[in-house]
């Protein structure tokens, strides 16, 4: 068991960080110092990453909280509280990405989308938001690749086929647009109830 003055100093710092309710920046700085020192000592502490994620979340830094939770899951993949927090933050990131108030060409979209895709947490709505972004920013080829992948990943989702039809039409590929429209006509009106999350790769 690791012990000694160095550890005691780090634990004191960790306790100070947890008690630092008024100054979120100071708490974050202390947590990060502890994390860095722990790593130097050869420990990836799921606990420290988890509490740091909580502090970041309370400060409204959702993306950074998600990043810390990814590290916590890596450090201890069998920790249920960590997994629950990870799922919760992922769901809030998905909701933030697909917020109807967000403009189709919002510059934050690619970053939020990449975060979710890297974590295997992107759902149908997240992929479609990225397709709409690619169309809105004149990246039709990228939009097409994504839309084709979405229809492979979610073949029963009408929204996916409709997005593909729109992209194909914008590209002047009427044959593919008509085929996608036909698929959309027979597909369900809503996303499948038990949709899957994952990477949309062509």
């Amino acid at each position, binding site marked *: *068991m690791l012990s000694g003055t160095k550890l005691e100093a780090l634990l004191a710092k960790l306790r100070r960080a*947890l008690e630092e309710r008024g100054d979120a920046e100071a708490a974050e700085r202390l947590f990060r110092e502890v994390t860095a020192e722990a790593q130097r000592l050869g*420990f990836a502490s799921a*606990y420290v990453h988890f509490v740091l994620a909580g502090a970041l979340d309370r400060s409204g830094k959702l993306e950074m909280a998600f990043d810390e939770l990814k590290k916590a899951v890596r450090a201890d993949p*069998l*920790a*249920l509280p960590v*997994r629950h927090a990870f799922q919760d933050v992922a769901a809030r990131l998905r909701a933030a990405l697909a917020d109807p108030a967000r403009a189709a060409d919002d510059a934050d979209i690619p970053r939020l989308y990449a975060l979710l895709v890297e974590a295997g947490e992107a759902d149908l709505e997240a992929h479609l938001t990225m397709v709409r972004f690619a169309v809105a920013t004149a990246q039709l080829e990228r939009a097409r690749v994504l839309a084709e992948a979405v229809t492979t990943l979610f073949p029963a989702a009408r929204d996916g086929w409709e997005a593909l039809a729109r992209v194909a039409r914008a590209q002047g590929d009427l044959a593919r647009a008509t085929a996608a429209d036909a698929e959309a006509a027979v597909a369900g009106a809503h996303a499948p109830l038990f949709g899957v999350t994952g990477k949309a790769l062509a």
Partner: protein
Amino acid sequence: MVAQTKDDILLKVQAAQSLSSEDPERAELYLRSALKDAEALGHSSATLHLQLAELLFRLRRTRQALAEVIEVLELDPFNLVALNLHRALGRRMR
């Protein structure tokens, strides 16, 4: 023996969690089984050991709880929950 996956282990942990109040002895069996499976997969989970330590603490099996909490601190010496439990167990043993 059929190899257990991480998801199988998580199911056992979840079962242990829901049984921990009503049937702590069965919860302990699930947790020990999950720990064994995790070990077979090459995982050492501080959180699993901590869950078992807390259960054993509630069952007043102090020495066994202490052994588990020491495992936690070997894996993650920065876990303040484990450190607090370690202190509480120390007080109980005096």
